[in-house]
């Protein structure tokens, strides 16, 4: 059974639709027992960091998420919340990864949010087995995770390289939206679901 963590964030439906297209049923839940007993856990998210963390803390989900041992997939805000802290609302996050989430600097003449299809490179997570260097994935975000020892793929936006994904043990986290990234996104979702 695949548990999709329910919290006050958008795009949950997109993730569940993508799982459905791949032939997988999923359960949207904030029940600790259901999450702990799931074969795999997906932590989606589009939203604002401080209100999302407040919700997770209030519902006792922070400690649950941190202690999960099954394959775990964080997406977009669901990746940023796995870091130590975020500049967005100056928020303390879950701390699986030691990084601080930063805001794209303003006034450089580039467009924020970083929105659209961009390439990922230096792939080093097994869920990218069927993907290629330079595959295009769909991004929408105004905050980013700097490169670190846990970076499992790299994206570049107007000269700034940042973590397109992070990997540590059972925690696979993606800044982009695999559920909205056509075939390239479906490949890695399938790998995750099949337990690569």
């Amino acid at each position, binding site marked *: 059974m695949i548990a999709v963590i329910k919290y006050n964030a958008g795009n949950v439906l997109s993730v569940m*639709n993508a799982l459905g297209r791949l032939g997988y049923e999923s359960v949207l839940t904030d029940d600790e027992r259901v999450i702990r007993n799931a074969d795999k856990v997906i932590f989606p998210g*589009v939203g604002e960091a401080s209100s999302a963390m407040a919700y997770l803390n209030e519902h006792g989900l922070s400690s649950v998420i941190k202690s999960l041992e099954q394959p775990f997939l964080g997406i977009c805000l669901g990746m940023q919340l796995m870091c130590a802290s975020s500049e967005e609302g100056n928020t303390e996050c879950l701390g699986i990864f030691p990084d601080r989430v930063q805001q794209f600097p303003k006034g450089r003449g580039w467009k924020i949010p970083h929105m659209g299809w961009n390439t990922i490179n230096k792939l080093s997570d097994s869920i990218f087995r069927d993907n290629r260097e330079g595959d295009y994935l769909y991004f929408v975000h105004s905050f980013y995770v700097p490169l670190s020892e846990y970076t499992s793929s790299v994206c570049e936006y107007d000269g700034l390289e940042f973590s397109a994904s992070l990997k540590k043990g059972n925690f696979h986290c993606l800044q982009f939206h695999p559920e909205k990234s056509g075939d390239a996104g479906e490949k890695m979702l399938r790998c995750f679901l099949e337990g690569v």
Partner: protein
Amino acid sequence: MLAKRIIPCLDVKDGRTVKGVNFVQLRDAGSALSLASFYSSQGADELVFLDITATVENRKTMVSLVRDVARNISIPFTVGGGIRTEEDVERMLSSGADKISINSSAIREHSLIDRLASRFGSQCVVLALDAKSNPAFPSGYEAVIDGGRTPSGLDALEWAREAALRGAGEILLTSMDKDGTKDGFAVDLTRIISSNIDIPVIASGGAGKMEDFRTVFEDGMADAALAASVFHFHEIDIPELKDYLRQSGIPVR
């Protein structure tokens, strides 16, 4: 490198596509879902569905279309037309739309943008800005509503700046001078808006040939380009367009 996006626009009335779409490949070309799937398989980067249904009752069919599209298509899509309230937005997003676009309703009530951005996030709020050449305005363009019939009294660039400050995540910029002409995008207008605001701009109106896309990306500084009839009538094939742009040195997916 961030790719320039190609976005087909589907006009939908009572759940069916309009504008005389002529597709031999599709069993039911009037089905918005079939057409959307086709464009997605052709490499469209996003889709826009514009609801031109006249009655509130028939708008319900749009919700079921949005639900079907979200289940079947794995690229982002925007829904526009007839969206006036937070409840309208909530209905579309909870049915699976990634973004919504607002136009006249935002001009009539500017704070609608703030409310939508704070409740749903800027990433899903697209401001549709219809602009018409008017030398009386500082930028040379005025924002217009009701399909170009009603002047708003707002300078197009000032309105774009204000919308970005209020929290719009993207601007869908349509030139009412160029729309329907197939005479090329409004490059001057697009550059004025795109180079003066820090959110992405989708250029719309006037696409006639592949070179038009190249020009609006290179000279107009557009982040994305939207078109309808050139795609619907096979005048431009999306894979061919992308090959052409790639060879011209423009990053595309």
